[in-house]
Structures are given as structure tokens and as C-alpha cells.
């Protein structure tokens, strides 16, 4: 039987550009604040859970160990996890089960990110998120996946871009009341968002959360310890996490089923049977504005395609019926990746204790949900938190987080000229081989054929092919040649490279479902004007001349619209 577990303290640094503090120093500022908020000395901490982005991000080997002293891990059981953007919420889940299992009574959970070290742009460290053989030759940009998902979500549900922009407006306005926020803006309007630069249509600059440095920490305790530490613990009532298939182009880009699965797991544990009635405040993950809506639907708080109405009607406002991202979210407070997720847990802690000051949602909410999401739209992490046993007793507490929490922003010139600064690179190169299934697939491309693998249990033809079916976990049964035609599932018109430098000509990335298969892949469109491309358009592969093919995804030069009768 799992023990009951509560959050008893929280702290965070300001989220800034180019923090003067090192990653360790940021982690310490947040950790110290979290301990001070519940008046605990470090020696009451039994174990430490930490999360931070991959080592390549900061160029620090074994970053967990590097950050450990700032997270209070000296001489303690310590573990670092990373599940992409889902990490910040996941580290709270890890702290939960470390305490629920009886392994520890009091755990410090810390999330730190310092994105400013990565030059010229942090996206460079994310390029290997794409398949090195099937996708990277196309020159993908992290914005592509968001633009592609956003376009399909908008198109399938007929969503007006204004309703998506309204999320960015709401969150940046909310953040104006957050003492730690990087991008709070009380007077921003929908027109400002719609007028901002188009990066990868439909994604515009103000649809996106900012690169940031920062850290967040929480203190998690067993029931017995929690009651000694505070009169107002906030209970972790349910946790859930879930993964979708590793082949992102094979997923439903309209509905995040993996978030729904994680939510069902957390709600089941928390005894939540009617989420829309039993959840009073939400902190869904909002690295892009549409993601908040997408995730509110995944959290089963709104029917599919209905979250946009909620933001339009003010339901998601801080004083609305279901306040969503009252903190200001990633769009307003900032997005130091792992730290941003744990910031959402901290916000629920403050909201449910009535400690959120100017950000406080009215009506003494009793239960909230926080969610994060990560990797290539694969990971969903969900935590349900609640206050039990009457209203909070806020008599002696200060507004949180205190406005003084450090994290000092360096100017760009200060960053460039800092005494003692060092610039370096890892300097490693990699060579990837294709493996069995993709090797044969690429041989097929050289012959002008698109090949899939058939699973006779789930009756799917898998493209890209794999030698095993991830659903049935058995070897697939045989090779199938599929058509050279397909249907555009979604597309984007991308104007920037991965380092945010402008492109001379826009690119047209698209996810194409290949006829005769149950999947599809990422490629680009050609012989098409951007304005004529639609979701649902029939396209065909345009092959390179036989002599120029090398057994590469680029043996298909691009896909072009099927014209005339063939367009069906």
C-alpha cells in the first residue's frame, strides 16, 4: 500500500535570459528557497530527485552530477531523470514514488535549466531528436513539428488562429503578476500576436515561449513528516505518465492520446471521475499557445476541439470557471525546459494553499492538475494535487515566490565579456547506420519503391517499416510494396532555419500518409505554391533520376500535388 505524499514547500528563481549564476548556483537558489518556505534545514532531506535537459544542451558531461551540490545531494541518495519537456512534472512524480514507497520520508525535487550556454541557438542540441537517417537529411527544424501538429489540430477542428493567439495573450497577461516572470505583459493583445513574425506557418513568434535560464525546487514529504512540517500540506493525489509510439509521423496529431492515458492514470489514482467538475485549477503545458488547448483536451477537461471556445469565452481566465496557467505558464513566465514543468507543480502548491498573491485564483480551489509533455510529442506526465481538510491557514506566510529570488540577467555584452568565461565545443561527430528495417527501406527507395512491413495481428502496414510491431511486440510478417502516392496529413510553410536565421525560399515540410500503409513519414512538398497546399491533398513522390539515387530518403526529391483526375 502506497503511503500518502504531500508537497510541503516550493521555491524558484526568476526566469531570465543569460543568468549570471551558474547552473549549480541557480539550483541552490531555488532549493534554498524551497527549504526556507517550510523552514527545513538541509539535513532533514533524505533523498534528492533532479531533472535537467540532455548534457549536450549545456555541454556539461553528466550534468546531474555536476548540479548535485546545488540540489542538496551531497552525501545523499540522488538520481537524475530526463524525459524531454515532460521532465519537470516527472521529477515530482519521481519524488512522489520515492516517498510513497517508503524509501524516503522527505525528498527535495529540483529542476534546473541553463539554455543560454548553447550557441548559436539551443535548437542545435535538439537536432538529433529527429531520425538521423529518415528525417535529418531533410534539414528539419524543431519548429516543424509544432507547426505541423498545430496546423492539423486547427484544420481538423476548424479553429480560428485568434482563439489560439488568445492563449498567448492570457498567459503573458497572467505573468505580469508573477515576480519571477521573464515575459509578463499586461497590455498585450491578440493583434500583437497575429502581427508577430511568421516563423513556420501557422507558428508566429509570439505563439512560442522564450529561451530562458532558471530553476525550481519543491519539498515532498510523507504524511507523517508533512504534518510535522506544515499545517497546510498539498497532497499529491494522483500521478500518471505515458508514451506514444516512437514514430511521431505515425501518431494522431489532433489528439494527444498519451496525455489522455497519463491523465486517466492520475485521475484513477485520485478518484477523479468527472475532471471538468472536480479539477478547479489547471497548469497544462504551454510551450506553444495551441499546446495548452491541445493538452486541456488531452487532460479530458474539454471535449475534442472545444478548448478554443473556452479561452475565447474567458473560461480559462484567472477568474474564469477553470483557470488555466494562472502562473503565466511557459509563454509568460519563461521556458527553462525542465524547470518550467516543475514551476507548474509549484504554482499548484501556491494556488491550493492560497499563497499565490496577485495570481491567486478566486474561490479557494481544492484540486488542481499540472501536466507536461516532451520529446517529439511522445511523453505525457500528469500530477493531480489537492488540499484536504478545509481551507488553508495562511496566517504567517509571505507572498510566494518572494520577489527577491535571485537569478540575475546578464546583458548580451556582459555575457560576451564576462571575466573567466570560456567558450568551447564538444567536437564529437557521429556515424549512424540504418539497421535492418530502414536499410531495406532505403534499398527500396533506390529502386523507386516505398516498402512497408506488415503485422498480421493488428493488420497494419508499417511505414516507416520496422522488424517488430510495437503494439503486438512480435516480429512483423513480411515486406509489402505500398503506393508512391499519399495524402498530406499536415504541412507547414517554414521561413527560418534551426538557428532562427531566415531562409531565402520558404520550405514546405509535410507529414504524408502513404497509400496502402497505416503510416507515413516526413518529407517536403515541391511543384506547389504554398497557398494551394491543403491538408487532405493527394500527392505523389517525385523520384530523383535512377543514377542519382543513393539509398537515402532524398531519393524521393519531394512530393508534388496530384493534378487533374488523379487528384480524386
Amino acid at each position, binding site marked *: 500500500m502506497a503511503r500518502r505524499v504531500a508537497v510541503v514547500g516550493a521555491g524558484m528563481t526568476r526566469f531570465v535570459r543569460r543568468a549570471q549564476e*551558474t547552473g549549480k*548556483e541557480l539550483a541552490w537558489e531555488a532549493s534554498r528557497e524551497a527549504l526556507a518556505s517550510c523552514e527545513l534545514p538541509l539535513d532533514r532531506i533524505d533523498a534528492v530527485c533532479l531533472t535537467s535537459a540532455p548534457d549536450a544542451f549545456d555541454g556539461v558531461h553528466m550534468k546531474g552530477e555536476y548540479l548535485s551540490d546545488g540540489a542538496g545531494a551531497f552525501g545523499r541518495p540522488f538520481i537524475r531523470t530526463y524525459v524531454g519537456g515532460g521532465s519537470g512534472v516527472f521529477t515530482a512524480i519521481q519524488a512522489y514514488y520515492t516517498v510513497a514507497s517508503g524509501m524516503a520520508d522527505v525528498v527535495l525535487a529540483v529542476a534546473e535549466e541553463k539554455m543560454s550556454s548553447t550557441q548559436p541557438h539551443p535548437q542545435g542540441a535538439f537536432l538529433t531528436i529527429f531520425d538521423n537517417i529518415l528525417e535529418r537529411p531533410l534539414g528539419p527544424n524543431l519548429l516543424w513539428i509544432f507547426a505541423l501538429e498545430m496546423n492539423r489540430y486547427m484544420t481538423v477542428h476548424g479553429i480560428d488562429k485568434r482563439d489560439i493567439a488568445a492563449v498567448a495573450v492570457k498567459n503573458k497577461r497572467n505573468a505580469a503578476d508573477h515576480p519571477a516572470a521573464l515575459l509578463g505583459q499586461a497590455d498585450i493583445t491578440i493583434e500583437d500576436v497575429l502581427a508577430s513574425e511568421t516563423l513556420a506557418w501557422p507558428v508566429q513568434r509570439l505563439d512560442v515561449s522564450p529561451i530562458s535560464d532558471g530553476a525550481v525546487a519543491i519539498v515532498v514529504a510523507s504524511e507523517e513528516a508533512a504534518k510535522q512540517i506544515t499545517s497546510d500540506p498539498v497532497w499529491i493525489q494522483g500521478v500518471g505518465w505515458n508514451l506514444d509510439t516512437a514514430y511521431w509521423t505515425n501518431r494522431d496529431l489532433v489528439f494527444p492520446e498519451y496525455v489522455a492515458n497519463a491523465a486517466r492514470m492520475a485521475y484513477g489514482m485520485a478518484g477523479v471521475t468527472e475532471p471538468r467538475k472536480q479539477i478547479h485549477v489547471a497548469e497544462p503545458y504551454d510551450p506553444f499557445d495551441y499546446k495548452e488547448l491541445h493538452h486541456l483536451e488531452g487532460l479530458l477537461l474539454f471535449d475534442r476541439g472545444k478548448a478554443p471556445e473556452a479561452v475565447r469565452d474567458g473560461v480559462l481566465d484567472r477568474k474564469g470557471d477553470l483557470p488555466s496557467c494562472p502562473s503565466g505558464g511557459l509563454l509568460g513566465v519563461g521556458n527553462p525546459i525542465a524547470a518550467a514543468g516543475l514551476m507548474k507543480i509549484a504554482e499548484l502548491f501556491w494556488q491550493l494553499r492560497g499563497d499565490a498573491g496577485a495570481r491567486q485564483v478566486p474561490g479557494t480551489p481544492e484540486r488542481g492538475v499540472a501536466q507536461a509533455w516532451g520529446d517529439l510529442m511522445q511523453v505525457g506526465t500528469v500530477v493531480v494535487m489537492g488540499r484536504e481538510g478545509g481551507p488553508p491557514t495562511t496566517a504567517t506566510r509571505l507572498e510566494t515566490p518572494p520577489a527577491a529570488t535571485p537569478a540575475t540577467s546578464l546583458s548580451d555584452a556582459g555575457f560576451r565579456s564576462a571575466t573567466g568565461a*570560456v567558450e568551447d565545443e564538444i567536437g564529437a561527430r557521429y556515424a549512424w547506420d540504418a539497421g535492418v528495417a530502414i536499410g531495406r527501406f532505403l534499398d527500396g527507395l533506390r529502386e523507386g519503391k516505398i516498402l512497408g512491413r506488415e503485422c498480421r495481428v493488428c493488420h497494419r502496414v508499417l511505414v516507416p517499416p520496422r522488424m517488430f510491431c510495437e503494439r503486438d511486440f512480435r516480429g512483423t510478417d513480411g515486406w509489402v510494396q505500398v503506393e508512391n502516392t499519399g495524402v498530406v496529413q499536415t504541412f507547414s510553410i517554414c521561413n527560418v532555419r534551426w538557428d532562427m536565421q531566415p531562409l531565402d525560399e520558404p520550405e514546405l515540410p509535410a507529414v504524408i500518409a502513404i497509400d496502402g500503409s497505416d503510416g507515413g513519414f516526413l518529407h517536403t512538398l515541391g511543384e506547389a505554391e504554398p497557398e494551394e497546399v491543403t491538408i487532405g491533398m493527394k500527392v505523389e513522390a517525385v523520384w530523383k533520376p535512377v543514377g542519382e539515387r543513393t539509398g537515402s530518403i532524398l531519393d524521393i526529391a519531394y512530393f508534388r500535388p496530384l493534378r487533374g483526375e488523379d487528384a480524386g
Partner: protein
Amino acid sequence: MLERIARPEQIRRWEGDLPVRHRYTPGVAGDAFFTALEERGVLLGSRCESCAYTYVPARLFCERCFSELSADTEVGPGGELVSFTIVFRGIEGEPLERPQTLGAVRLDGADAVLIHRVEPGEEPLEIGERVEVVVEPRSRRTGSILDIAGFRVVET
């Protein structure tokens, strides 16, 4: 299901890298340490009174008790050689023209040890012997760990 690779030369490879560089700034405590080293040629540590421990280089906080620290304690220039090694090959395994000696030194007034190069002397090194920091002249100091030229044995 596994296919035997008969002609490894025909395996195709896709080469790539992570096209990023990193810029590290030294942080709050590091800024104080490197500024003092560059401007005054001294090594600053941080003393935690409650743990009775002095860190070097300076730190913003004590990892043992989480107290805030300041860069308030000048350490060295003398110290004790805690350990050393002599390196004969470089990072790629190539033989070095001149073997390089690295030492771990507990500077006077510090508890933490500092790793740096040791200038070779006439006699073989011995663990426990007295060494001192050699700082580059002011004109050559840039606010870098290399403003310390290394350690040398104190002649007695």
C-alpha cells in the same frame, strides 16, 4: 531475423554532429574568484564556519549545509602536495614530447584541493611535500585558470 553482414564496407553511414558551441560564464562566486586572480594575483576561497570547511575556488553556497558563502578567504600561496601524477601521453594516446606533471594541492587555509600543473624540479616529487602557487605576471593574466602557471616545490 538478424541479417549477417557479409560486406561491411557496403554498410552505409550517415554522418552528423551536434552543431553547437557552449559559452560558460563563471557565475557569482566564479566572477569574484577570477576577478581577484586577474587583478590581484590571489586565490579566493569561501569559508563555511558552521561546517568548518574552506572551499577553493570560492563558492556561493556550502554544499554540506546550504549556507550562503562569500568569496572572503584568501588561501595559499603555499600548500601541501596531496597527490600527483606524471602524464606521458596526450588525449589521443600520442606520446608527449615532455611528460606533464599534475598535482592535487591543499593550499594553506583551504580544505578543498586544487588541481593544476606542477613545474618539474631537480628531485622526484613526494606526496606531503610543500609547494606554492606560481601566478603569471599581471600583464599576462586574463581572468582564467591559466593565470595560475602551476605549482612548484618550495626549496627548504
